[in-house]
């Protein structure tokens, strides 16, 4: 197993900057998920680590060895591709043993490793099949098996679940989590799906526009998003954002937007950040819009909204609220028995309230 280090890694296609100075470190035995919207450069970063893409500038180290100019097969990595890339004219066993056969490994060793991987992934009965005779989930397992057989230092997963349907994706997600517990390997996993990122990762790397936005454990990224992008990208339904400005009254900070005004206690926004007249964005997750609750120490003053639409999800319900021209989504326990158009009192949970500077988009409290 191994650690991976990216140092000021840059990638340009002609004049298009895909990656702009990426610095990151992945520790031994760590499961790191790189997440971001499509086109943010996450797959390019992974392919550069695998050696399938040239590095414009910067350095990539695997186990403190510079691999910039090393052939992919020498980097001791294994990659699982989005479209699986199983060789269609080879059986499952041949697919899994291809790398070892190219290396002219002894036959006994090849057999032993293939059997071992097949056992882990429950592929034993499928070893003689052709890829086209397998279902999507089975192909995915073969692709993972092909990686396991090679006993690499680092496993790379490139959006491995995005070609599966929703139900199968959930199953495979659990399978991958189990596999990680069993192999305890260094895994770098690229996805655009924040649910996969939250559930699988030991640490999440959030990327946008070729820049790392935040690195942290899932709960850090969720509870303390470093900027507006991370706050909006992680979490479903999306965080509510309200633009406004801060004003100081009697030494206490007050957030004021066109439609609402909320006192901001010192434990939410540090005094040094609370500058009179500062343009800010208030972020609050739908879970933290407390409907009908009484104002308390942890909740803001009571506010009034009008219910526009409510969506029943089963055990939860999404409420689309309107305060003047401002719209908010609240998530409450089912069943919320009020008709659209009725008045709904709510308050915002101070404990999970986020403030971002409007210009730098960085977190300030």
């Amino acid at each position, binding site marked *: 197993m191994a650690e991976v280090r990216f140092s000021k890694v840059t990638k340009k296609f002609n004049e298009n900057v895909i990656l702009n100075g990426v610095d990151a470190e992945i520790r031994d035995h760590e499961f790191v998920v790189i997440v971001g919207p499509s086109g943010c450069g996450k797959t390019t970063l992974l392919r550069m680590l695998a*050696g399938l893409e040239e590095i414009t500038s910067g350095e990539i180290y695997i186990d403190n060895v510079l691999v910039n100019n090393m052939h*992919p097969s020498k980097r001791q990595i294994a990659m699982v591709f989005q479209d699986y890339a199983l060789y269609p004219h080879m059986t499952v066993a041949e697919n899994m043993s291809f790398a070892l056969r*190219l290396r002219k490994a002894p036959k006994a060793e090849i057999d032993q490793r293939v059997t071992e991987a097949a056992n882990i992934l429950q592929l034993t009965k499928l070893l003689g099949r052709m890829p086209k005779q397998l279902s999507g989930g089975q192909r995915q397992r073969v692709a993972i098996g092909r990686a396991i057989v090679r006993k690499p230092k680092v496993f790379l997963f490139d959006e491995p679940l995005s070609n599966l349907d929703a139900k199968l994706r959930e199953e495979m997600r659990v399978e991958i989590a189990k596999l990680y517990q069993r192999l305890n390997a260094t895994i770098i996993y690229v996805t655009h799906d924040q649910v996969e990122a939250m559930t699988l990762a030991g640490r999440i790397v959030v990327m946008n526009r070729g820049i790392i936005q935040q690195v942290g454990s899932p709960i850090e990224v969720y509870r303390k998003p470093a900027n507006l992008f991370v706050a909006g990208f992680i979490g479903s339904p999306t965080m509510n954002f309200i633009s406004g400005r801060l004003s100081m009254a009697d030494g206490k900070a007050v957030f004021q937007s066109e439609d609402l005004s909320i006192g901001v206690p010192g434990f939410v926004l540090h005094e040094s950040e609370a500058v009179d007249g500062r343009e800010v964005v208030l972020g609050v997750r739908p879970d933290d819009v407390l409907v009908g609750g009484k104002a308390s120490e942890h909740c803001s003053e009571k506010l009034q909204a009008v219910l526009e639409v409510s969506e029943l999800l089963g055990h939860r319900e999404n409420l689309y609220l309107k305060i003047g021209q401002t719209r908010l989504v609240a998530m409450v326990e089912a069943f919320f028995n009020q008709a659209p158009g009725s008045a709904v009192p709510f308050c915002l949970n101070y404990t999970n309230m986020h403030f971002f500077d409007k210009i730098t988009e960085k977190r300030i409290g």
Partner: protein
Amino acid sequence: MDILYSIYEVLWFALIVLTGIALIEGYFYYHFKFYDRRWFFPVALIGFPLAAVAFCRALGLAADPFRPLLWFLGSEALITLFFRHIVKGRNQLAYLLLAPAFIGLALLLVYPFIFEIYLSFHDLKLTTIMQWKNTGVLPFVGLRQYVNVFTTSPLSEVTFWALLGRTLWWTFINVFFHVTGGFALALLLNNSIRFKGFYRTLLVIPWAMPQVVAVLAMRGEFHSQYGFINIMLVKLAAAYPILASLGIGPVQWLSNYPLATCTLINIWLGIPFMMVVILGGLQSISSSYYDAADIDGASYLQKLRYITIPLIKPVLMPAVTLGTVWTFNNINVIYLVTGQSGGTEQADILVSALYKAAFTYNRYSYSAAFAIVIFAILFFISVFYLKSFDAAKEER
């Protein structure tokens, strides 16, 4: 005014063809649409045979209308029963759209083929052709023409077996170099090189040119005195005496090595087709296979062997089958290079010998039997190829 008359003739011909198609379509439409009506049988059995006989008489055929009428009645009875109990109006549109092409093909292929079989069991040659014209009867000879095909020479001296061997050799050499040459060029063009479109166009030109033009131009280049190739050989031998001492010098291509010349020209002509087909196959291979192979540690040659070649097989096999049939049947190159006035027999393959037997020596029935033998050979080659292609497809 001549041009106007020609246009008028063409339009008239088009009108006849369109009317023919309309009649055929109407005939089938009736059978598809009204198969379950009560009046379906009576109308069809009275109407269509009478109309057909009337049409034949209008053309001056069927002087005695009774026998043709029975024929038409019988076949119409079978057709109506078929439509009533088997077709039952299903897939109406598909068959109506297929009908004109199918009938055109039947007229162009099936009728001549049947006539060819008829000829091959009779004896039509210069001495019997007037008898045939006057009486419409040809002497029946059974299998004698087929025996002749294998025992006598279609030309003046070379035997069938020598021709067959030469043809197989010619086909193998040509297809082999078409595939290897086309594959090599396609691999080069599949890289991201500059001016790719330009190179591709240049390389396809020999194939896009009319074969007559291309072959005659190349034939000129093989001229012993003024051809490019001999000029180059002379200059090379003069510049590097060592080459001359190895015996390299001008060659009498057309008179001493006619088959080799034809082969070189045909290889040059056939490479572009294979290149285009293989290039299409290469471009359809997902690049992630190569990525996976890179990570698995495959070298360039290993990727070629384990990924490229197995994955282009499905496009390559039909192309090779077609190429084999075309090369086996390729009379153009051989006839244009060697066949004209007093040409040599050294370069003849089966089909060019067939052409000469039929139209230079006027042995029509013999040629018909000869053609059927060639057809059988090609048929078996194609079936063999397609079977092996299916087997390859089963594998994946």
